[in-house]
């Protein structure tokens, strides 16, 4: 099934400037695989050398961070709000 994944401003340059990408999958892990398959240059920014999401990459499903829950195994569906959210608030325009 098709699910819309929202992506942060910092990564939109890898997705032709789009804020949302439509992906096929039943779990969050499927969406992540699909995203990296569609935009391979985004991969190293999201995943570590073992293929796991980097520590500062969070996924929210219906407003809840899945870290500590089912993680990439979290089921997703077309009606849900799914977003890839950076762990930090600064960094797009910056505030240091």
């Amino acid at each position, binding site marked *: 099934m098709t699910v819309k994944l929202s992506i942060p*401003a*910092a990564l939109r340059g890898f997705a032709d400037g789009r804020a949302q990408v439509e992906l096929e999958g039943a779990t969050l892990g499927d969406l992540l695989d699909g995203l990296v398959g569609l935009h391979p240059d985004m991969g190293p920014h999201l995943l570590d050398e073992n293929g796991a999401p*980097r520590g*500062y990459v969070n996924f929210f499903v219906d407003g809840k961070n899945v870290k500590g829950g089912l993680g990439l195994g979290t089921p997703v569906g077309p009606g849900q709000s799914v977003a890839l959210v950076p762990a930090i608030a600064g*960094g*797009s325009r*910056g*505030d240091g």
Partner: protein
Amino acid sequence: MCPMNVCDLVGRTPLLDLSSLSPAEGVGVWAKAEFCNPSGSVKDRAARAMLAEGLKSGGLGPEKAVLDSTSGNTGIAYAMLGAALKRRVVLHMPANANRERKALLGAYGAEVVETDPLEGSDGAYLSAKKAYESDPDGYFFPNQYDNPENPRAHYLTTGPEIWEQTGGGVTHFVCSVGTGGTFMGVSSKLKSLKPEVRAVLVQPDSPLHGIEGTKHLASTIKPGIFDRALPDEVVAVSTEEAVKVCRRLAGELGVLAGVSAGANVAAALRLAGGLPPGSLVATVLGDGGARYLSDGLWDKA
């Protein structure tokens, strides 16, 4: 501007010797302990200068609220100073700012408008700008990204402090950029005193990173106060390397510093490895590590 209160505690921070972390014999690596500022970060310097200018010019009258965007530290500095100056403080901040930041802002009585976390600090900035434009008479909008008082604060305080504390021996200044205030002000001051001082810009190695408060310049809007011509060289640091150095600072030296400090020190140590004996690298520990407890910075790897 306000004698005998917290405003007077800003600046004059210690310079810590971190050279024992360096593999380079005879090369000093020293860092300003900016977490010693009263609200806990280097941002107190710029915030104080911008508000002082507002008080002096009349822009920040008693009827005005301080309004700006922030990802945390500048907001906390405004909030502290606003409480001391009896001014309302309204901050536009991405909703994913961590628990510690929100709690500190609440403690000082600041009002927070949460903005879309996916839009990052750009979204917060645009939101604050819109609020200001809708009620310019109600707000004093320092706009830390474009306000010359920001780098000027570092030109007048942080830069001279580093010069004096190193006895003029500093050869390199290493610093990351959020607004660019610290990097621009300190580098300009040190170069004015000793033109051969090299200004080394620290950059996250990716547009998506976990080095809070630092800006990946290649993929973002350039702050108005930042001059791309000033850095002599650029060092890229990964979030993982910054975190590793934070843990070394805590475990080997007892210095509990934040992630941007880890990035700055990581870059300084790498740079030091290639320098001749007698070189002295100065950098900045922008904030303390206790501000990152909920982010998992100190969780066991």
